[in-house]
C-alpha cells in the first residue's frame, strides 16, 4: 500500500501540506472573549447533521461536529480528524490514521471505535447513506486506525465522503443508537453546545479541550487550524429580514445573514457596519419538463433558450445582486468549465421565432411553475414569462408554495407544468459531481419520460464517476455540461449573491458557504 493523495486527485496538495513542516506561526487570537450573536434567517429543527440536509442546521452544527475529511477554502477535500489517509493501489480500501489526543466535548478521547460507530449510525439512518453504497465495511485494527473496505472501486469516494451536505460527523460511540433527529450534541469541534431552544436560539461556548489541527497555520474552509476566540456564539433565529437589520443596527446582533437589498443603502452609510457579499450563493435555474409536449421538442426548448435575456432575469431575481455565469460551476472552482457557453444569454428574438416555427409550436399554453417562498424564483419566472410572450409563446405562471412545486416537479410524466424554477445552492458549491446528480435518474430534473435518462448524458455522468484519471473525469463533466446546455435540459441563468453583514468590530469573519466562528474575534 502506498501513500496517495485523496483519491479525487484534488487533494494531493492538501495531504502533502498535512505532512509538511510548518514555516509560519499558527493563528493566535488577537483578543479573546465576548459573546457574538448571529441573526439567522431560518428555524433550526434539530442539530443532528446526519439526518438533516438543511442549511440552518449546518450553520450551527458545523461548529460543534467534525468529520474525518472536510473541504478547504477552495472546496478541495482535506483531512480534519484524520491525520493521514492512504488509498490502496487497487482503490479497494482507504486507511485513515486519526489525529492524536482529540477529545469529545464530554471529555472522552476519540478513537477509531467512535469513528466506526458514527459510520454505523450513518449507515442506519443517515440521510445521504447512498454515500456508503460502494462500501463493503469498515475495520478498526487499533485505536488510531480506521479502514474503509470498498465493494467496488469508486474514484470519487473521498469527494463524496468530504461533502458537507449531510456529513458523516464523528460522535461518541455510545451515541450511535440515538434516534433520527435526537442525536445528543457532543462532537469534537471548537465550540460545544450550551443551550438549544428550538425556534429561539442555540448558544455555543468555547470548548477549552479543543486541539487545533497543527498540520495547518490558518483556518481553511471548514477545517485547518481552528481556534475559538469567542467565549460564546449565540445563533438567534430572526426570520423577519427587517428585524435582523434592526438588530444589527442596535448592536443586539453582531452578524446577520440575508440582508434585503432595500436595507443595503442605509447600512452602507453606517460606519459601525460592514457589508459582506457572499458571491455564488446559488445558481438561479429553470428546468423543462421533457416528458410533455411541446417541451419534449428540442427545437422548442432551444427557442426558449434563444428568447431569454438572462441579465434581465437575474436582475429581477436578485435585485441586481448577481454575476453572469455559464453552466453549473463557478469560475473560482477548479471544476469550472464554460462548455456550452454559446447557449447562454442568446437574447435573439428572431432566432427564437425561427426555432419556434421549426418546432411546429401552435400556441399551446405553457405553464411556468414557481413559488413565492423564494422571491428570486418567483421574480425570475415572472420575467421569463414576459420574454416568452414577447416571441409568441403562450406562457403563464403557476404559483404554488415550495413543497408543492417540488412535489409537482418530481412527478414522473407530469402534465401540470412545462418549466420549473429553482435555485441550486449547496450542490454547486460541493462541486461538479454533486451538482450533476440533479440531471440523472432517479428524479433527473429535466424530467425525461418515464424517468429514463438521455443515454449520452448518462454516459458522461458514468465517466464523471468512474474514470480513474481526474483530468478525464473533468473532461466528462465538461461533456455532460455541454450536452445538457445544447439539448436545453436546463437553463442556468447565473449566480446569485447573498448579502451578509456584521458589526465593524467583528474581525476574521469571512463570508463562506456556512458561517464559521472559529478564528473570529471581537475587537475592543
Amino acid at each position, binding site marked *: 500500500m502506498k501513500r496517495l493523495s485523496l483519491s479525487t486527485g484534488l487533494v494531493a496538495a492538501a495531504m502533502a501540506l498535512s505532512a509538511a513542516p510548518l514555516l509560519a506561526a499558527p493563528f493566535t487570537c488577537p483578543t479573546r472573549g465576548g459573546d457574538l450573536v448571529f441573526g439567522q434567517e431560518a*428555524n433550526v*429543527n*434539530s442539530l*443532528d447533521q446526519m*439526518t*438533516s*440536509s*438543511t*442549511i*440552518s442546521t449546518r450553520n450551527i452544527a458545523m461548529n460543534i461536529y467534525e468529520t474525518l475529511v472536510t473541504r478547504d477554502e477552495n472546496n478541495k477535500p482535506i483531512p480534519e480528524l484524520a491525520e493521514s489517509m492512504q488509498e490502496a493501489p487497487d482503490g479497494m480500501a482507504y486507511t485513515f490514521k486519526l489525529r492524536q489526543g482529540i477529545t469529545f466535548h464530554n471529555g472522552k478521547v476519540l478513537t477509531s471505535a467512535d469513528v466506526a460507530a458514527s459510520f454505523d449510525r450513518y449507515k442506519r*439512518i443517515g*440521510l*445521504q*447513506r*447512498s454515500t456508503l453504497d460502494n462500501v463493503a465495511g469498515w475495520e478498526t485494527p487499533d485505536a488510531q486506525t480506521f479502514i474503509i473496505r470498498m465493494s467496488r472501486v469508486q474514484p470519487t469516494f473521498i469527494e463524496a465522503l468530504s461533502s458537507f*451536505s*449531510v456529513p458523516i460527523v464523528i460522535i461518541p460511540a455510545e451515541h450511535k443508537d440515538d*434516534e*433520527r*433527529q*435526537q442525536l445528543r450534541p457532543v462532537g469534537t469541534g471548537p465550540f460545544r453546545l450550551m443551550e438549544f*431552544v*428550538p*425556534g*429561539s*436560539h442555540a448558544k455555543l461556548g468555547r470548548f477549552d479541550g479543543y486541539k487545533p489541527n497543527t498540520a495547518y497555520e490558518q483556518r481553511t474552509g471548514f477545517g485547518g487550524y481552528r481556534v475559538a476566540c469567542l467565549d460564546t456564539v449565540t445563533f*438567534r*433565529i*430572526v*426570520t*423577519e429580514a*427587517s*428585524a435582523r437589520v*434592526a*438588530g444589527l*443596527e*442596535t448592536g*443586539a446582533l453582531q452578524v446577520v445573514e440575508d440582508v434585503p437589498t432595500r436595507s443595503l443603502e442605509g447600512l452602507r452609510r453606517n460606519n459601525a457596519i460592514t457589508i459582506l457579499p457572499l458571491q455564488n450563493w446559488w445558481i438561479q435555474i429553470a428546468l423543462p419538463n421533457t416528458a410533455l409536449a411541446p417541451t419534449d421538442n428540442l427545437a422548442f426548448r432551444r427557442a426558449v433558450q434563444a428568447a431569454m435575456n438572462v441579465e434581465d432575469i437575474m436582475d429581477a431575481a436578485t435585485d441586481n445582486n448577481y454575476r453572469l455565469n455559464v453552466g453549473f460551476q463557478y469560475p473560482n472552482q477548479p471544476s469550472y468549465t464554460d462548455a456550452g457557453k454559446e447557449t447562454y444569454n442568446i437574447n435573439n428574438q428572431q432566432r427564437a421565432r425561427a426555432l419556434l416555427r421549426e418546432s411546429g409550436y401552435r400556441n399551446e399554453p405553457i405553464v411556468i411553475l414557481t413559488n413565492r*417562498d*423564494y422571491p428570486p424564483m418567483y421574480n425570475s419566472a415572472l420575467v421569463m414569462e414576459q420574454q416568452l410572450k414577447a416571441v409568441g409563446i403562450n406562457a403563464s405562471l403557476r404559483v*404554488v*408554495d*415550495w*413543497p*408543492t412545486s*417540488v*412535489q*409537482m416537479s*418530481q412527478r414522473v410524466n407530469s402534465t401540470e407544468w412545462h418549466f420549473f424554477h*429553482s*435555485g441550486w*445552492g*449547496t*450542490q454547486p458549491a460541493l462541486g461538479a459531481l*454533486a451538482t450533476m*446528480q*440533479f440531471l440523472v435518474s*432517479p*428524479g433527473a*430534473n429535466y424530467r425525461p419520460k418515464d424517468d429514463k435518462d438521455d443515454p449520452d448524458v448518462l454516459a458522461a455522468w458514468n465517466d464523471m464517476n468512474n474514470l480513474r484519471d481526474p483530468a478525464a473525469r473533468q473532461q466528462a463533466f465538461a461533456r455532460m455540461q455541454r450536452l445538457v446546455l445544447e439539448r436545453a435540459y436546463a437553463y442556468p441563468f447565473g449566480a446569485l449573491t447573498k448579502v451578509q453583514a456584521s458589526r465593524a468590530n467583528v474581525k476574521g469573519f469571512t463570508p463562506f458557504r456556512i458561517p464559521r466562528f472559529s478564528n473570529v474575534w471581537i475587537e475592543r
Partner: protein
Amino acid sequence: MILLTLRRLLSAIPVLFIVSLISFGLMRLIPGDPAAAIAGIAATPAQIEQLRRDLGLDEPLLTQLLHYYQGLLQGDFGKSLLLGKGVLAATMERLPVTIGLSLYALVLTLLIGVASGIIAALRQNTWVDQLAMMIAMLGISIPGFFLGLLMIIFFAVQLGWLPSGGYVPFAQDPIGWLRSTTMPAISLALLQAGLLARITRSGMLEVLRQDYVRTARAKGLPERQVILKHALANALIPIVTVVGIIISLLLSGAVVTEALFSLPGMGQLLTQAVLSRDYPMVQGGLLLVTTFLVVVNILVDILYALIDPRVRYE
C-alpha cells in the same frame, strides 16, 4: 353551576372530535410534499426520497387516520416529522411563550380598551370621546405587523429602550421577560383594545340611559359608585363575551407577532409546521390550542353565570 360546567365540558367533546377530523383531512388535502419541505432547498431528489421513506409518508390514508385516533385515545398526539420529538412535548415547550404574551396583551387590552370606552361614554360627543374613538379606530385599522415594525424602528433602533427581538423566559428574568414582550404585547393589544373600547362605549351608553342608573344618581350616590357598581357591572356582559373572542384573536394574532419579534411560541411552531406539511404537529398542535380555547370559552360561560344570575336559572 356544577351542572352548567358539566354540560359545557360534554359539549366540548364533539367540538374537539370535529376539529381533529378537519385538521387531519385539511392537511392531507393541501398539496405539497412534507419530505421536500423538511429536507429544505439544499436537498437532492435522492435525499428527499430517502427522507420520505424514513418518515413513513407512504402509508395509506385510512391507516394513518386509524393510527392517529389510536394514539389520541392513549394521549399520544404523535411525533413531529420536523422536530423528531413528541407533539405534546413540542407544544408544551412553546405554549407558555404564547400564553404569556397573550395574557400580557389581554391585560393591556382590558386596561386601555375598557378605560377609554368608559371615558368616551361619560364624555359622549366631546373632544375626549372623539379622540378616544379616533385612537380606537386607528388601533383597529393599523395592521399589527406594521405597527410592530414602527415600534422596532422607534423604540429599539432610534431610542434603544427595548430589544428589537428575542425572548427571555419569565422564570429566568422577569424584567427581561417584560422587556422582550412589551412591544409584541402592545402591537397585539392595540388592535383588540380599539375593538373593546368601541364595545365598552356603546355598552356603557346603553346602560347609562337605563332607569336604575337614573335612580342611583337620584338617590345621591357618588358618581364613581354609580359608574363602577351600577353601570359597569351591567355593561360587563357584552364585554365578557368580547373578551372570550379577543383571547382567541390574540392567540391567532401571535402568529405574525411572534415571527416579527422572534418569539419561540406556538404561532411560529404551527406556521412552520403548516409550511413544512408536518401533519402530526399541525393536527396535534391545533387540537391542543383548540382545547385551550374551549376551556377559555367554558370559563367565559361560567363567568356569565357569576355576573348574571339569569344564566344560572336557565
